[in-house]
């Protein structure tokens, strides 16, 4: 049976049929695999949070805890210390884990009066407390995000983890690397007078080894100015939102 494949009507019917078949196929596969993918994303978030509070793979301190142990360790170090903060009021709830910073940002954009929900995780390790703040911002090409853990006086950064969606490999993508991220550890987020200042990713601050921990600045990455500025803005804004709540805790 020879089909006249050159006819316009045939071409259109073929195209429509193809789209329907392919669409159904992909939708099917997506819904079959969805539980697995969601579980992986949860594990990743647990790994990220643990990493920001310094719980890492015992063999390689620059690696996450192994995926199969993430849940167990997360329960051990963070447990149910998950909070949703609105303004300066905190509510202890499991739901905090599911709050996405991106969605909250979008809601705020649509409605300037929206009171955003801010997730906060409190980890305990070796008798120390880590206040872990998730944050999200923009790099040069696409989204960047991270988790920063603060000490209980809300003065210093105790650990950080940054990741990105599509920054330039070898340049902006280096926000993921230890040499950049580790500079944040111990860095003060308050200025000399004790006011909130954030941390600036700064070119030529004359402190490449990051000896001065009280200058509110870390050394920039060569060739990644805009990604660096993105990190500055993200960290500054990300922690600032929590200040009203931190102020009540300090009292």
């Amino acid at each position: 049976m020879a089909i006249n494949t050159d006819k316009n009507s045939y071409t259109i019917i073929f195209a429509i049929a193809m789209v329907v078949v392919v669409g159904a196929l992909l939708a099917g596969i997506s819904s079959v695999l969805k539980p697995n993918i969601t579980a992986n994303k949860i594990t990743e978030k647990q790994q990220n949070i643990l990493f920001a509070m310094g719980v890492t793979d015992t063999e390689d301190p620059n690696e996450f805890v192994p995926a199969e142990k993430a849940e167990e360790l997360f329960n051990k170090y963070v447990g149910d210390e998950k909070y949703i903060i609105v303004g300066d009021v905190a509510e202890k709830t499991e739901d905090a884990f599911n709050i996405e910073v991106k969605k909250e940002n979008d809601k705020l954009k649509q409605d300037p009066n929206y009171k955003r929900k801010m997730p906060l995780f409190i980890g305990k390790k070796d008798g120390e407390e880590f206040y872990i703040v998730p944050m999200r911002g923009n790099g040069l090409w696409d989204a960047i995000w991270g988790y920063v853990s603060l000490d209980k006086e809300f003065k210093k950064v105790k650990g950080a983890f940054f990741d990105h969606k599509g920054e330039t490999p070898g340049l902006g993508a280096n926000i993921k690397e230890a040499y950049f991220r580790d500079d944040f550890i111990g860095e003060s987020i308050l200025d000399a007078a004790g006011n909130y200042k954030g941390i600036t990713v700064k070119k030529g601050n004359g402190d490449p080894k990051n000896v001065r921990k009280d200058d509110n600045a870390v050394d920039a990455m060569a060739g990644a100015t805009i990604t660096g500025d993105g990190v500055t803005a993200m960290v500054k804004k990300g922690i600032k939102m929590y200040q009203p709540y931190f102020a009540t805790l300090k009292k």
Partner: protein
Amino acid sequence: MAEVTEEKVEVKAKEPKEPLFSKKNKKLLTDPLADNNPITIQVLGICSALAITAQLKPSIVMAISVVFVLGIGNVVISLMRNIIPSKIRIIVQLVVVATLVIVVDQVLKAFAYTLSKELSVFIGLIITNCIIMGRFEAFALGNGPWKSFLDGIGNAAGYGVLLIIVAFFRELLGSGTLFGAKVLGDPIEKTGVYAFGYENNGFMVLAPMALITVGIIIWIQRSRNKALIEDH
């Protein structure tokens, strides 16, 4: 283009039933591994060869994914070759690659999450890999499913083998590791070869060195098989 028409003519003359692994079919599989390698001879798929060959592990995953996409894709296109409207055949081919790539991406996300994060954008880039569209257009549209399958596997494997060779040298010389294992000793503790003053060549990790490595492989291959040298 001479090659393309040749292949299309080949099928028109319906051959009598031949064994599954006839000499000709075997050639479809083995030719792209060496004498008609998609990267070194046809110079296709170079972009991804530069991007992911800094380490062995992603190269191997990329190779396997391309074998999967091209093997299956070639069969699908070949099965549909008589009903695809010629006006939109490139679009149909793209849809087939894109579908398969999305499947690979989703499967990796579900079962090898860390790996899928590492490969992130490159899996999506399989869609643009010229080898795939090239084989669909030049081979699968004119040949039966079994032959197309062999051709797809052969070409993808030829691409994969080269990726792995390049990645082997780049990871070994650039980072001193293979699959992340420190085979040359520890550069910071100064053990192994580092004790004698050896240093990693950081240049090997950068993309241009992949081109140069591919260049060296092309050089070696052509100096061993003079028939491959084009007479310009």
